[in-house]
C-alpha cells in the first residue's frame, strides 16, 4: 500500500438519536481546521431514535469531494449492523468496535485488523447516569479516532472550548470522554495508523456549510421578506436557517419588530399560494420543499406561470416516487419541475451543484423570477442541502441591487395613457407589472382563466393564443439569462460526459480516472433551464454523450433530447439512484461497458 497520508475514508456506524452527530461533526471540523480537505456524508434513517445511521468522512488532500464506496476504517458501534458494516471495509483495512462485548467469531475477517476499545466499560466507570454514559460513549470514539488518525488534539480542544464555552459542565465531560478514548487507544495500539492526517493549508479560504443554510443566506441577501413553508425532509433546515438569519439580521433595532414574515402553512398548496400572493403584492417570497410538495404545488405553479406572477421554490430533492425514502437523495424531480402543472407550462429551473452555488442561485432565482414574472425552481438535493460541504467562502458584492423587472410605479402610471398588463412593449415577451395599492391606473384582474393582452377575460381563439405564445417566447428567452453550463474540456476527447447538480464531484473525479486510463472525455454540467444554445452545441459536437444523473428513468437525458432535438442515440445514460450520493465509481463503471471496456 502506498502512502495514504491525507488520502483515505472512514465510516462511523451508530444508532440514530444517540448523540453521535455532534462527535461526527467535531471530527470533520477538526480535520478541516488542520487544513486538510474533507467531506462528510450523513446517511441517516427516517426515524428519530434507534434506527441505524452512518457518517462517512473522506479525507482528500487532492481535493476530491465525492462520496467514496471504499472504506479504510470502519467505526462499528452498532451491533445491529456489524455484519454489513464489516463487509464494507477494504481488504487490509481496520475496524474499531466496542470490545465491552466480545465480537462474534463469525464476524471476524482475516484481511481486516480489529481494534477493540471498551467504550461502554470506560464510560460506565467514568460517568454516572444512563443518558450521559450513552452520550459520552459517542464522544469517546472521537478521542479514539484522534489517536488512530493523528487528529490534532489542540484543534479538538479548541473546538470543544468554542462549542461548550457557555456550558462548563458539558465542556468538562466532553473533554474527559475524548481523553478516555484517546489514551486507551494510545496505550494499547500502534498509532497512528498508516492512514492518517498531516496538517496542510488547503482550507483557509473555505467554509463548511450545507446547501440549505447557504440557500437561506441567499434568500436573506436577495432581500426576500416572506417565506412560507410546510415542514418536509430534507428541506426543513432551509427555512429554519432563514429564520435564524432573520432573527439576527432582520429585526428593526429600534422597535424590535421583524422585517420579515415566516408563515408555516397548513400544507404545500397553501405555502405556494402564500408565496404567489406575497409576490403579487410586491415582496420577494419563497418556499422550500421536496418532491411531495412539488406535486401539491403544481396547480398553483401553472397559475403563476399563466398569470405571470413571480415565485421562488426550492426543491431539495429526495427519493421518490410518493413518500419514497425521505432521508435518501435523488435527482428525480427534473421533469416535474420543468413542466409542473397541467396545460402547456415550462418553468425556469436552476441546478446548483454545491452549497456555494445554492447561495448564488438563490439570489439569481429571485432576480429571474421578477425579471421574467414567472416561477423559478431551484433544484438541489438532500446531499447538497443537508450535508456539510467544504466550499470556497461565500462572497457578496455590495453594489448588487435586486432586479425587480418591469414594475411600473405610481409616477410611470401617472404618465401612461392606458395600461395593459399583458402587452409586449419591448418585444422581449416580458410585459409590465403593477402592484396592488399603488395607483388606480395600474389595476388589472389577475386570473388563471383565459385572458387577452389587456388582462380581460377571453374565450377568443386569437386573443388567447397571442398571450400563451408570448409567454412561451418570454420563458424561452430566459435561456440566456440562466447560469451558463459548466464546461471542462480534455485534449483529444471525442465523447462527452453530461451531468447535473450533485453528480458534479463524482464526474470530476471520474474524468481524472478515465483520463489516467487513456480515455479522455469532455465534460458539461447543465446549470439552468431552459437550456442555452451552448448545451445543444456541446451535445452535437460529441459523437457520444453520457448523461450522468441520479434517477431511474434518465430524466435529464429525456429533457435534453426533448429540448435540443439531439437524437437519443447520441445520448448514453449513466444512472445511479439507490439513494446515496454518487461516487466516481458509478460514473466510470457506467461508461466503460458502452465504450468496449469492462466495467
Amino acid at each position, binding site marked *: 500500500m502506498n502512502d495514504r497520508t491525507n488520502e483515505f475514508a472512514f465510516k462511523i456506524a451508530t444508532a440514530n438519536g444517540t448523540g453521535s452527530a455532534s462527535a461526527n461533526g467535531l471530527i470533520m471540523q477538526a480535520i478541516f481546521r488542520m487544513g486538510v480537505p474533507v467531506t462528510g456524508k450523513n446517511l441517516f434513517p427516517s426515524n428519530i431514535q434507534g434506527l441505524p445511521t452512518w457518517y462517512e468522512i473522506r479525507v482528500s488532500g487532492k481535493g476530491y469531494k465525492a462520496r467514496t464506496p471504499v472504506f479504510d476504517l470502519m467505526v462499528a458501534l452498532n451491533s445491529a449492523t456489524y455484519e454489513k458494516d464489516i463487509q464494507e471495509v477494504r481488504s487490509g483495512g481496520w475496524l474499531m468496535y466496542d470490545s465491552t462485548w466480545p465480537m462474534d467469531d463469525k464476524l471476524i475477517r482475516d484481511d481486516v485488523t480489529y481494534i477493540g476499545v471498551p467504550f461502554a466499560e470506560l464510560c460506565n466507570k467514568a460517568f454516572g447516569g444512563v443518558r450521559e454514559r450513552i452520550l459520552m460513549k459517542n464522544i469517546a470514539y472521537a478521542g479514539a479516532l484522534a489517536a488512530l488518525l493523528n487528529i490534532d488534539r489542540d484543534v479538538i480542544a479548541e473546538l470543544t472550548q468554542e462549542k461548550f464555552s457557555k456550558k462548563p459542565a458539558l465542556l468538562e465531560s466532553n473533554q474527559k470522554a475524548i481523553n478516555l478514548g484517546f489514551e486507551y487507544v494510545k496505550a494499547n495500539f500502534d498509532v497512528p495508523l498508516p492512514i492518517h492526517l498531516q496538517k496542510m493549508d488547503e482550507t483557509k479560504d473555505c467554509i*463548511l456549510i450545507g446547501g440549505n443554510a447557504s440557500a437561506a443566506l441567499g434568500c436573506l*441577501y436577495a432581500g426576500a421578506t416572506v417565506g412560507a413553508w410546510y415542514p418536509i425532509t430534507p428541506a426543513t433546515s432551509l427555512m429554519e436557517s432563514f429564520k435564524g438569519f432573520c432573527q439576527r439580521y432582520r429585526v428593526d433595532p429600534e422597535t424590535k419588530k421583524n422585517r420579515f414574515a415566516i408563515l408555516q402553512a397548513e400544507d404545500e398548496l397553501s405555502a405556494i399560494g402564500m408565496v404567489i400572493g406575497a409576490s403579487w403584492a410586491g415582496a420577494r417570497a419563497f418556499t422550500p420543499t421536496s418532491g411531495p410538495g412539488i406535486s401539491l404545488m403544481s396547480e398553483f405553479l401553472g397559475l403563476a406561470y399563466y398569470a405571470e406572477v413571480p415565485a421562488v421554490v426550492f426543491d431539495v430533492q429526495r427519493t421518490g416516487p410518493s413518500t419514497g425514502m425521505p432521508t435518501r437523495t435523488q435527482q428525480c424531480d427534473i421533469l416535474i419541475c420543468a413542466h409542473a402543472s397541467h396545460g402547456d407550462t415550462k418553468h425556469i429551473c436552476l441546478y446548483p451543484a454545491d452549497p456555494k452555488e445554492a447561495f448564488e442561485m438563490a439570489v439569481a432565482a429571485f432576480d429571474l423570477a421578477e425579471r421574467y414574472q414567472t416561477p423559478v425552481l431551484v433544484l438541489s438535493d438532500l446531499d447538497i442541502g443537508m450535508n456539510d460541504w467544504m466550499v470556497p467562502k461565500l462572497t457578496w458584492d455590495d453594489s448588487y441591487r435586486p432586479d425587480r423587472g418591469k414594475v411600473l410605479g405610481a409616477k410611470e402610471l401617472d404618465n401612461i395613457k392606458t395600461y395593459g398588463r399583458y402587452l409586449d412593449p419591448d418585444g422581449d415577451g416580458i410585459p409590465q407589472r403593477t402592484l396592488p395599492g399603488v395607483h388606480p391606473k395600474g389595476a388589472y384582474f389577475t386570473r388563471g*382563466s383565459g385572458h387577452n393582452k389587456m388582462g380581460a377575460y377571453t374565450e377568443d381563439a386569437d386573443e388567447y393564443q397571442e398571450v400563451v405564445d408570448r409567454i412561451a417566447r418570454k420563458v424561452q428567452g430566459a435561456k440566456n439569462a440562466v447560469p451558463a453550463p459548466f464546461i471542462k474540456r480534455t485534449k483529444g476527447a471525442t465523447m462527452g460526459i453530461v451531468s447535473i447538480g450533485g453528480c458534479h464531484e463524482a464526474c470530476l473525479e471520474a474524468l481524472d480516472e478515465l483520463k489516467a486510463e487513456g480515455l479522455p472525455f469532455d465534460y458539461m454540467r447543465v446549470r439552468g433551464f431552459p437550456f442555452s444554445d451552448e448545451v445543444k452545441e456541446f451535445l452535437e459536437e460529441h459523437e457520444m454523450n453520457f448523461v450522468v444523473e441520479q434517477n431511474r428513468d434518465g430524466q435529464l437525458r429525456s429533457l435534453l433530447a426533448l429540448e435540443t432535438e439531439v437524437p437519443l442515440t447520441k445520448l448514453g445514460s449513466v444512472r445511479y439512484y439507490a439513494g446515496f450520493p454518487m461516487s466516481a465509481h458509478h460514473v466510470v463503471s457506467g461508461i466503460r461497458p458502452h465504450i468496449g471496456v469492462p466495467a
Partner: protein
Amino acid sequence: MSYLAKPKVHHPSLKPNALGLTRRDYEGALSTLCAGCGHDSITAAIIHAFWELDIEPYKVAKLSGIGCSSKTPAYFLREAHGFNSVHGRMPSIATGAGAANRELIMIGVSGDGDSLSIGLGQLCHAIRRNVNLLYILENNGVYGLTKGQFSASADFGSTSKKGEVNEMTPIDGVTLALNLGATFVARSFSGDKEQLIPILQAGLQHNGFAFVEVISPCVTFNDHEGSTKSYSYTREHMIEVVEADFVPIRSEITTQYEPGSVKRVQMHDGGMVNLRKVAEDYDPTDRDKAYAYIRNCQSEGEVATGLLYIDENGKDMVEQNDVVDAALTNLPYSDLCPGSEALAKLQLRFR
C-alpha cells in the same frame, strides 16, 4: 361579456362621497351571472359599502377562488387589483399578500364549494391566523358553475334540481368559524341589503379575519321546492336590517332595527326559510353564548343572521408575527441586506 367595461358616465343624480366619487366609480365590469343571481345583489352591496366608507378603490385588493361567486370581484371596484386564483385557495393568496403589504384593504369572495369543500382547509387556517381580510362566503348550497351539484353546505334532506336527496349533514360556516376562534362572524342574506351593507362595512373595518356568510340563492340550480337556500319571491318578506353600531366605524351607519324577530321568508316555489334577527339582549362579544344562540336557532329550524360575534382585541396575522409597522414591500433594500462585511463575519461560524 365581462370584458366590456361599462361606460363611465356620471349621473348628476348620483351622490358623491367624501372623495368626490359616486357609486359608479366603485363598479366593475358587467356581470355575466344569471339574471337574478343572489351573488349580483351581494356585489351591489359591496359597491355601496366601499362607496359609503370613502375607501379609495386602488387601495383595495379583491381576491377570489373559482366559481360563479368567485367571478364577482371583476364586477366591482375596477380601479382595484383583483386576483381570481384557483379553486378553494384564495385564503393563501390573501395570507401572502397581507403579509407582504399590511396596508392593503383586502376583500375575498368565495362560494360554499370554494370555501367548504375544496377550500375548507385553507379557510380554517386563514381564520386561525386571523388574516386581516373581509371574507365573504356566498352560500347557495350548490356548485353553481359546474351546474348544480350539492355542496357541503346543502342541508340534510334538501333536494337538488334533479331531485336527488342530500343524505349528509351540512358544514355550517358560521359555527365552524366561531369554533375556530374567528374574531368576526356574521351572516346575512343577499336580498337584505340593509342588513348586509352595515355588516360588510363593519367587516372591512375589523382588524383581522371578518367572516361573513351571505345566503345567496342560485336561481338556476337551487331555487326550487325542497331547496333550503332559495329566494324569497317578494322583497317585502325580507328580513329587516340588524344593528351593527357597536363596531368601531368612521361614518355613521343608519339602520332600522327590529330586535328579536323571526322572519319566515316564503320562496318562489313555496318553500320557507326562517331568519332570526339577533335579540336585543344578544351579546356578540361572548363566543359561547353566540354559539349557543346560533345552535338554538338551528334546532328550531331558523337561521340566525346579523353580526353574531366580534372580538376587536385579537392580534391579526402580522401582529402575531411581530412584523414591522410599514408594509414589507416598502422596506428599502438597504434594510434587508446585511452586506459583505456581515457575511464575512458570519462565516467564521462555518469553520
